[in-house]
């Protein structure tokens, strides 16, 4: 990211309002808004405060990288935004849903409709083909088998794996497996993609390909992408970077 772009992002943040942020002259909706969020875990009798009174606003269509040392609370923050967890205090509003007030069942349904997940270890089912793995989220939608198949093939085409639809994960390289994961993440057209160390298990070449793909999804398909990474080179590809340390955004 150039210095000019960084300056623009900083200016955007300053102009954040309750309803949205401004990018240039265009009003952009805030898709993620966290206010006074704290997350506390108990390790036996010991209280561990992972996130402390955290505020965050992410505009729709952003590609943000979340960095920080191990144990800084990056994944916890991502889990709260993705609706996998609820804060101990504070409010989490994502894609027009107030997550801390929703029950487990409500958040599960909300996740299926709004969030695409990309994991470091891919988490593909080894007994299914690439296409069947991508179809997995669609099993929850009321779609015909042929429609599911068509959408899965389209998603695999977007990630450049149209010639690997019948391959099982064990027959694919790490980079290809991560691309299948990305296809699975976008197949139900979610608003937000959360990626937790998506390049963590990949070599530089494959990591760059995955980052190119995420960039493409952000630019061409206007997906909001939140990426946790340790890798400065990966973070460099995001349009905005945030640093988390000891549960606080720097």
């Amino acid at each position, binding site marked *: 990211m150039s210095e000019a772009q960084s300056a623009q992002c900083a200016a955007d943040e300053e102009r954040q309002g309750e309803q949205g942020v401004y990018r240039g002259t265009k009003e952009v909706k805030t898709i993620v808004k966290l206010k006074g969020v704290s997350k506390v875990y108990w390790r036996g009798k010991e209280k561990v405060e992972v996130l402390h009174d955290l505020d965050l606003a992410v505009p729709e269509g952003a590609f943000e990288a979340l960095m920080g040392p191990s144990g800084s609370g990056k994944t916890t923050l991502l889990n709260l935004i993705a609706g996998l967890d609820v804060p101990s205090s504070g409010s989490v509003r994502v894609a027009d849903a107030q997550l801390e007030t929703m029950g487990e069942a409500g958040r599960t349904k909300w996740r299926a*409709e709004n969030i695409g997940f990309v994991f470091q270890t891919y988490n593909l089912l080894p007994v299914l083909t690439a296409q069947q793995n991508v179809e997995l989220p669609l099993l929850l939608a009321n779609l015909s088998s042929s429609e599911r198949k068509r959408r899965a093939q389209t998603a695999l085409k977007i990630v450049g794996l149209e010639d690997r639809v019948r391959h099982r994960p064990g027959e694919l390289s790490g980079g290809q497996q991560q691309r299948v994961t990305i296809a699975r993440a976008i197949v139900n057209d979610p608003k937000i993609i959360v990626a937790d160390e998506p390049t963590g298990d990949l070599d530089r070449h494959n990591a760059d390909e995955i980052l190119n793909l995420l960039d493409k999804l952000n630019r061409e398909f206007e997906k909001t992408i939140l990426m946790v990474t340790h890798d400065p080179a990966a973070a460099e590809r995001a349009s905005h970077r945030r640093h988390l340390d000891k549960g606080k955004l720097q």
Partner: protein
Amino acid sequence: MMLGSLAAKNVLGRNRVRTLLTIAAVAVTIFVFILLRTFITAWTAGAEHAAQDRIATRHKVSFVIALPKSYADKIQMNKDSLGVTDVTWCNWFGGKHPQRESDFFATIAVDPQSFLRVYDEIQLSPEERESWVQNRRGAVIGDALAKKFDWKVGDSITLEGTIYPGNWEFEISGIYTAARRSVDRSTLWFHWNYINESVGQRAKDQIGWLVSRVEDASRTAEVSKNIDAMFEDRGEQTTSMSERALQTSFLGMVSAILTTINVISVVILAIMMLILGNTIAMAVRERTNEYGMMRAIGFAPRHIATMVVGEALTIGLLGGLLALVLAYPMIEQGMGRFLEETMGGFFPYFRISGSTVIAALVLATALGALAAAIPAIRAARLNVVDALRRVG
């Protein structure tokens, strides 16, 4: 692809050795269950399939004390007032094959004509019937017995008498089959006259028991009472009961064995549940991360539970089917034939019943699902964040 097919893929697509061993373990336990159930049904077949319109009359004190043959004549004379349509008599002979003394089979002396009327489930050709009735030394044997000793129609055989000592010669007049499962197909029936004419004066005109056929099967209790009343003031008093009640009273003597077999069947199924439950629990533990991913992308706890139970159902069903595939040739063709030939008195019809097949399949799948209940609940209750954090 649906959750059901995903469950099946999980069963068949991963850790094949463990899956095959588990299916084999389920198959073995279900096979033993089928075998034990078949023992019980075969043992109780006599009572279950016994004729309801036949009454057996024996000495009041014991089955082994003889009755005068004149009792049969008396019933025959009073058959209308008693509600009896026909009567015959039998006498235990206790013959043995001289060369194969340990091979037990029943040898019973009867009056062929009345016997074939009362026991109309004995199937013989008209020629065989005629041949038997006409030949004083004629005997008819069950097809199982014929196969066992390789006896054929026209063969002359010699049996060694135990109750009636000496060597007794018979000619095989016919080989019967049975239209009713309660009939022992390894019995030798022969002329009562043959022994009656050969014994001394004191043992003459003695019979073991009487069998009467009644007009109305629903009146067997009343007719039994009337028959016993007829001989109440005689030296040898009688006890009459329906053939079914008689068979049931025999079963009562072995009820402890039957109960034990039933208990073993239940224990066997419990072992199957534990094996299956352990396998499913291991699989769930190994796939925690995958379940976490599925929960993250929107699968509800019930979906995860359904999948886990589906896997157990698949293993249970495959194990049950494999058990049946093994059981049919081994029990029906091998063990069943052997028992019918050698122990036809106890197991006249040793075959796998339809209800046993259904019970085996239903229990294999239902108990499989039950075995998966705890792992399924645990998988469904997984905390998504913790599950995603777990490796392997």
